[in-house]
């Protein structure tokens, strides 16, 4: 168990090192964090493939190469009917490599973080209320959607949305937040009755 935890910390440290290198290095030196990140990503092959499968990721990575090849520098390269700039393409590639390294490193780093790990992290550092807050907030998300739906249906059945659309938005927000706060008060009362107290 201890060995596994140490191994995870080494991975995270190496990822952080790659992140720092991506920030600091420029031009051809960016190859160093690129190799490091790709080697590390083999340990998280699922996350790596997930990221590579996203269209948005490729748009972000490829767009600087295309834009720079068209806009930056003198157009000295001919590709079919297109006139491109080789110096612009080089600038674009360095921008793309940097973006690739940063996005991959961040995705890999946070793939190791789970909700329970976050709560453990805050609890261990004495932030008792904070760890609890994240856990309960995560579970509250589902109850909010239910409350929101109920309020929306109530307003719709009373014909408010059609007759007074702006007023109904205000009423919707007020009702959802009020019922949320009432729910919060119930939690506080239950905690008080059980002598549960968080102070920081």
């Amino acid at each position, binding site marked *: 168990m201890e060995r596994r935890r140490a191994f995870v910390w080494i991975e995270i440290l190496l990822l952080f090192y790659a992140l720092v290198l991506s920030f600091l290095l420029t031009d051809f030196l960016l190859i160093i964090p690129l190799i490091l990140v790709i080697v590390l990503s083999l340990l998280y092959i699922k996350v790596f493939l997930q990221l590579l499968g996203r269209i948005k990721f490729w748009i972000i990575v490829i767009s600087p190469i295309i834009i720079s090849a068209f*806009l930056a520098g003198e157009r000295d390269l001919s590709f079919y009917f297109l006139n491109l700039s080789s110096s612009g393409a080089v600038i674009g590639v360095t921008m793309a490599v940097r*973006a690739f390294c940063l996005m991959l490193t961040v995705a890999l780093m946070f793939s190791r973080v789970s909700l329970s790990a976050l709560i453990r992290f805050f609890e261990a550092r004495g932030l008792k209320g*904070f760890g609890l*807050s994240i856990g309960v907030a995560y579970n509250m998300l589902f109850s909010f959607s239910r409350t929101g739906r109920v309020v929306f249906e109530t307003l719709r059945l009373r014909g408010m949305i059609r007759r007074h659309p702006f007023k109904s938005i205000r009423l919707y927000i007020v009702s*959802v*937040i009020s019922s949320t706060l009432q729910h*919060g*008060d119930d939690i*506080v009362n239950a905690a008080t009755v059980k002598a549960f107290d968080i102070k920081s």
Partner: protein
Amino acid sequence: MKKYQTRDWVYIWLFGALWGGIELSLGTILHVIFPPLVNTFFTGLIMASAGCIIALTGRSFIQKPWSIVLIGIITALLKLVSPGGVKLGPVVAILMESLLMEAAVSLFGQRLRTGYITAGILALIWNFIHRFVMLRILFGKNVVEVAVMMAKSGGKLLGIDEKRLIAIILILLVVRVAAGTVSGFAALKLGAEIRKRLELKYGA
């Protein structure tokens, strides 16, 4: 830091979850409706305004320093652990907006209206700058050069001169200042209305 009681923590997680819920639900819908290129103008503006209203309303119930930042941290963490992968942009935006709102509200102290409106304006202005900052972080210093060239050639292509391009940026900034003012004012009114409603219902 003033001591946070159980009630304060409960309210922090409630408002954090509310903001997080909006980010996860409305944010996803808006990203689907609006294509990526108009994100800066519509999605960001709507999401920042909604977040600003929720966080500032939360501040009127948790009148302790750093409460907006804590709400922002909860929201950012919810965004981090949400399904759909890690998106660094929104997380940085949420944290920066909450930090700026906290700074404005703390700076103006008892002058609530001024504080809330300034907080709204600062949060919405950050939302405008955010895209450029993130681009600079992601692509490095070359992005500035390419962006200037892109703006110039885009302007030429559409027949718009440089002065008008600056005017367009200024208009976008003014829209955000207006939205920030409205959000700050709305949060103030909303806080008062919810308090009144709860008092009427429970006499609390």
